[in-house]
């Protein structure tokens, strides 16, 4: 109960016009603080409830979460969220749900899928960083070129620690799997093999 109250308070704080305006004043704050914070709130909310989802429902939740994140990373979506209050609220709500969906689905997702997702996330952070650092034209109408550059350099800085964290988590996950089911560890990695 206390956790839910804390989450509601967090959501209320993030929704305050002054806080929202502070995020909106810089592209790096929107992309690296506002969006992850809303997802984190959703993840915390989902973890406070016991759920027993089927594998199918978990994968559907995972696809929903990835779709929502990808949608709000589109420059056009970011522009609309900065210019229309309704779209801004929709962004907050959908990222909250995406965070909740990730928290519910990831523990049930096969290790190989989680490894692929982690690797994909690290490479996308690097690719987005390169893109924003090197692209000459303005991508988001709501921001400016300098802010694009700042965001790109932060994404590049984040790539190394993120990849390191992913590698540590991957090694730990594989080791744990091998300890529990020595045969399953190999089998999990060979999904799709005849």
């Amino acid at each position, binding site marked *: 109960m206390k956790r839910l109250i804390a989450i509601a308070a967090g959501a209320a704080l993030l929704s305050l016009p002054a806080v929202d305006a502070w995020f909106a004043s810089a592209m790096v704050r929107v992309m690296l603080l506002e969006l992850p914070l809303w997802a984190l709130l959703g993840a915390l909310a989902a973890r406070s409830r016991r759920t027993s989802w089927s*594998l*199918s*429902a978990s994968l559907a939740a995972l696809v929903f979460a990835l779709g929502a994140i990808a*949608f709000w990373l589109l420059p056009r979506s970011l*522009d*609309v969220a900065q210019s229309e209050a309704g779209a801004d609220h929709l962004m907050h709500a959908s990222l909250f749900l995406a965070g909740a969906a990730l928290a519910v689905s990831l523990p049930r997702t096969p290790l190989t899928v989680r490894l692929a997702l982690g690797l994909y996330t690290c490479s996308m952070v690097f690719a987005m960083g390169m893109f924003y650092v090197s692209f000459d034209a303005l991508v988001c109408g709501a921001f400016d070129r300098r802010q694009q550059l700042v965001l790109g350099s932060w994404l590049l800085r984040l790539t190394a620690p993120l990849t390191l964290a992913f590698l540590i988590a991957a090694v730990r996950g594989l080791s744990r799997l091998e300890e529990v089911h020595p045969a399953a560890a190999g089998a999990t990695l060979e999904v799709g093999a005849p």
Partner: protein
Amino acid sequence: MRARVLLAPLVVLAAWLAVGAWWTQGFQAFTSFAAARVAAGPTPRPAPALDVIDEHGARWDAGAPGDRYNLVQPMYLSCATACPIAMSRLSVLSERLTDLVPERLRLVSLSVAGDPPEQLGPRWRAHGANPGWSLTTFADGPDAATLRALGVYVFVREDGVINHGLDLYLIDPAGLVVAVLDPDLPIEQQEERIRSAIP
């Protein structure tokens, strides 16, 4: 068994693909600038009425049928970033098209900010008082709907900066937008596209 497990994720994936296709107009427009360009429709298309006042105080319609082509460039006078570069490029383009400008082609810089007409003259003179290049502003103030119909995305930021599309719109004497030129194209290619559009 596997197919049943995948059914729900595939339905969600299909839903996201449908949303993505709708939002990006068939996966063509990922930025607001591109979305405005695509939403305006393919060329040739009728140009919207561009009721403007120029640097001499004359009022005319840059989108209406007339005796020559108009090459319309969105800009605003206090722009400190992209517009000065775009206007310098337009000046170079004008020098390369002296056989067309001003008899067959008029360059039209159009303010997206509703700059007062009296401020256009000094800037026009500062750019060399080119008789084939008009600096204009909407006669009745900023007109976002008309700019959108032309294909120009405009975002007015809280700090007063206006981010806007920089495409060049070639309007023929029949009042049709016959070409939309990427502002980042090399000037030689812009010139080539204009020449190929003007018989």
